[in-house]
């Protein structure tokens, strides 16, 4: 459903597209969709110390119809996979996915020989745009992930890169 990319307009309005991308990049509304421990770090990022609101991303919409980015924060179990797939399909285009934490990237610490319960990585269900490793990653890593997504949407990065000291 919706595999063809949206931008294949016949007449390419470069400045208009750039404006649309800029608008979309600066108001990414995430979905309140916390699975496990990383959800608490996602809430901490929305809280007052790290404050996602500065990037216009603090409107955590509960309904998938009104969000742009799905932050998969936690372990996707096999029982939860169809629900996550439905949520992804319910989101209107253009939509993005951030895989936050090792569990969403590759099953994290719950991968062992003969495991029966979890999907090893969100990219087995739908295309993922930004990966944030860590168990759980610090709130700054999630903000870095959102800046990474904005760089992917607009094509250039407006914020300084921070070297871990």
């Amino acid at each position: 459903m919706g595999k063809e990319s949206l931008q294949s307009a016949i007449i390419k309005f470069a400045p208009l597209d750039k404006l649309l991308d800029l608008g979309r990049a600066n108001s990414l509304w995430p979905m309140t969709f916390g699975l496990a421990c990383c959800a608490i770090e996602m809430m901490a990022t929305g809280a007052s110390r790290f404050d996602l609101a500065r990037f216009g991303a603090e409107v955590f919409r509960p309904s998938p119809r009104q969000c742009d980015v799905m932050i998969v924060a936690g372990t996707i179990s096999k029982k939860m996979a169809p629900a996550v797939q439905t949520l992804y399909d319910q989101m209107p285009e253009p939509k993005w996915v951030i895989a936050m934490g090792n569990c969403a990237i590759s099953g994290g610490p719950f991968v062992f020989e003969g495991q029966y319960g979890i999907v090893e990585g969100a990219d087995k269900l739908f295309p993922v745009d930004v990966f944030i490793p860590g168990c759980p990653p610090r709130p700054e890593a999630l903000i870095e992930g959102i800046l990474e997504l904005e760089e992917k949407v607009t094509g250039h990065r407006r914020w300084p890169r921070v070297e871990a000291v």
Partner: protein
Amino acid sequence: MNDLARSPNQETFVLNLGPQHPATHGVLRVKLTMDGEYIVDAEPVLGYVHRMHEKMGENRTWVQFMPNTARLDYLGALSYNHGYVKVVEQAMGLEVPERAEYLRVITVELNRIASHLLWFGAFVLDLGGFTPLLYAFDDREHILDLLESVTGSRLTFCYYRFGGLCNDVDDDFLTGTRAFIKRLRKRLPDYHNLVTKNIILINRLKDVGVLSAEMCRKYGATGPVLRGSGVDYDVRKNEPYSVYPELDFEVPVYSEGDSMARYMVRMDEIDQCLRIVEQALDKLPEGPVMAEKVPKILKPAAGDYYGAVEAARGTFGIRIVSDGTNIPYRMKLRSPTFSNLSLYGEASRGLLLPDALALMGSLDLVIPEIDR
């Protein structure tokens, strides 16, 4: 409460408080059969974040299971580390030095305050107030900084070892903790004035989701849920372990059994935890943090052992069955919210939808701990 024994052909509809819902704080699904806005029957459906902890307990060595215990209830992870370490030390008969026990109590109680603060914010968020969550998170960040400077991680700690701790504590942790205690004691009256005394909140919580002591006993509910219904049961007092007997603190008990009582129990527990941390800081002895002769490869004697610890949400019990090798034979994790939630079906019958969510919020659920 109200007469729901309507004629059988009253058309009820099934509402899915789906796996993704802001009020479930995780992936719990509750199948609600509703008659208008009243709940006829509620059936929680679990397993959406089942992470096979007990299966993993059977294919890794005793010390390698440590990170798993922290990922059960990541809000009060240190109590789970403490429970696991305590039951293995009990089985091996290991002696833990005094300083390590005191540091364990200090870090567990700080973690309990952080867990109660997050519950306080999330609970008032369920009731519609957004701001207290941000104030609670602000305080919680201070605790996470303290614990991160000692253990290295913010949420999923792996700090305790069998026989002690993996490294000692430096001085600015101690001064930082005292400063934090002063700061939180100044802010708690604000929380009470903003939320506890608020007439809207009182109307929302008074006589909502009343749990009798008998129903709690029948379902095996423990922790603040049980203490909210008038039963004075706290593992730290009933089965004294670690250095809790040397520290004096009360266990808050309210007998009304409604959501307001459970709310007040947890808010008073924050004060008690502050008292415990303060006393433990004063009595902190010098000395090593790790027992001397801890065997490299741990092999507890064959047999099964049970250990219980007071986690933030209730009694966390671990039943380990060892067959003498260094791989555990069976690891049963008794999580408190599993039993606390099992009474939800019966307790929420006849409630309105917002009251049923207030009841669920007052049970303080962490879903990965229920699904294990």
